């Protein structure tokens, strides 16, 4: 289910290899090269452009950055900061899960693969649960499930619309079936929100795959995505291996899902805040 975690492994390894080449490292810190059109800009310019290239490629940016973009005056209250992963199974592959967790926190400054907050968007209150892809591939374990449920509860009690920002390879293998059951756990909370007629928006970012797609990401009253995001159940590598040939251009990208009826609309990052405010206004009035 979490095959997209491979992307995270690859990246980690690349990070390690470039650390030994200091010059290249410094160069990479100053310049951003678009993987789609190869255009090179300074990192500062890239950041000023919200991580979006001239060609339209939306680079992955952090939850912190999304909160800056979305919330009015970058003001928000973070919820349930102190929930962290346990290692109930003492899971060990080539590395201990508990060590992985410590290493991840050290590297990213994050406590787990999700951050939850409440604030205002264009004057309308919104609770956001936003996944952190940089933390073990944004994988969903018990912490992600619990924080979504608690943020959902906050939305429910205060009658505030709820949004989950998905950016995840799926369920976290190191929590095995416990992580699988988070699909049902989060859906149970969404059921309660639905009955209370509290709007739920699902924003799918690159990538949204596996158990994330098979639960809350596809359950929004409104489901939206940024351009070009990979959204699917099975990862493209697995599908390619299964069918034994290359995948068609644009397969499992936002535009493909919109065409097949699984997204309501696609929104560019520069319009995200405005569009969300408009959407919230229409739910409210």
């Amino acid at each position, binding site marked *: *289910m*979490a*095959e997209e*975690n*491979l992307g995270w*492994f690859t990246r980690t390894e690349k990070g390690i290899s470039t650390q030994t080449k200091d010059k290249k490292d410094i160069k990479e810190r100053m310049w951003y090269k678009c993987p789609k059109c190869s255009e090179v800009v300074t990192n500062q310019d890239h950041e000023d452009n919200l991580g979006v290239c001239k060609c339209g490629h939306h680079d992955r940016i952090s939850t912190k950055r999304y909160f800056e973009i979305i919330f009015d005056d970058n003001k928000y209250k973070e919820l349930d900061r102190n*929930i*962290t*992963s*346990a290692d*109930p*199974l003492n*899971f*060990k*592959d*080539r590395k201990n899960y508990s060590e992985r967790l410590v290493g991840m926190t050290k590297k990213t400054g994050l406590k787990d693969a999700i951050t939850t907050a409440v604030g205002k968007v264009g004057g309308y209150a919104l609770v956001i649960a936003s996944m952190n892809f940089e933390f073990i591939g944004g994988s969903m*374990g*018990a*912490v992600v*499930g*619990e924080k979504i*449920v608690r943020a959902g509860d906050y939305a429910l009690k205060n009658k505030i619309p709820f949004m989950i920002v998905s950016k995840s390879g799926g*369920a976290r*293998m190191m*929590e*095995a*079936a*416990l992580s*699988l*059951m*988070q*699909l*049902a*756990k989060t*859906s*149970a*909370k*969404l*059921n*309660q929100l639905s009955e209370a007629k509290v709007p739920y928006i699902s924003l799918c970012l690159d990538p949204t795959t*596996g*158990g994330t*797609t*098979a*639960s*809350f*990401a*596809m*359950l929004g009253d409104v489901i939206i995505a940024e351009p070009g995001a990979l*959204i*699917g*159940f*099975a990862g493209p590598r*697995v*599908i390619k291996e*299964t*069918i034994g040939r290359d995948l068609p251009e644009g*397969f499992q990208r936002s535009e493909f899902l919109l065409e*097949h009826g*699984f997204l309501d609309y696609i929104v560019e990052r520069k319009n995200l805040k405005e569009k969300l405010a408009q959407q919230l206004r229409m739910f409210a009035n």
Partner: protein
Amino acid sequence: MILLDFEEQIGELLEQLEKLREVEATAEIDMTGSISEIEEKIKKKRKEIYSNLTPWQRVQVSRHPERPYTLSYIEAITGGDFIELHGDRHVKDDKAMITGFGTIDGKTVMFIGQQKGANTKMRSYRNFGMANPEGYRKALRAMKLAEKFNKPIVTFLDTPGAACGLEAEERGQGEAIARNIFEMLNLKVPVICIVIGEGASGGALGIGVGDRVLMLENTWYSVISPESCSSILWRSWDFKVQAADALNLTAENMYDQKLIDRIIDEPLGGAHTNPEKTFETVKNVIIEELEKLGKLDPVKRMELRRDKFLNMGVYNEG
């Protein structure tokens, strides 16, 4: 009978037994004593092996080619009083997912389950028990139908995973499974889910959200198969045994983690060694559980189901 690699010693005894029977038949010598002695040895050996199965061995038993599949359970439990329902009313009829009305002691139940095939031709016809979005949507249609006419639902989980391919993605595999999970938390009728073989990931959970989730003794349930887990975390297919250990995927592991409600015993040597006895046990468990669930108020029952799943998860706080 097809024997698994760890059953080799049973195989030798079975051969001896065969020979004795042959001798008895051809030479007309009474071998009753020796035969029962060997039979006793086989039983002892089985007990010895099966009381110490490793997680990986359980996975092997759950995939035994002679293990009974969903339709055999339904056939036996209903005594053949079963009407299969076809199609999702949108795209097609998914052969990997069975749905239909059947009766247990005269009372109507909606049966749903993934179906594997017993031979090469049927395995492909059933797509190895891997349902496409239309299979999950067919299951959902059946669940809604059951709810409309106030019939309880019994699902049989047996899948190596949801179907993976271009069409599955085009038709929204993720959405189909998500919708089922969501709607199953909403049903006002009793829902019993039983893992009878493989419970792989979202593909299993797509028909696996119930008031009571049960596992047969030699089945597995997890987020990923041991093989795929090995390939991703160990980056090699060679660590499936370690992965099976690490995943805590057996019925006992799942019960200890409070992720399932009950373990159903299998005959010694696995369900395939005595399917009739297995069907009988499962039938009795279904009757018992339905009776308990039937006493609950429908809304209360649904809320308890939601609460059960809302409480799943272990984490640190503070």
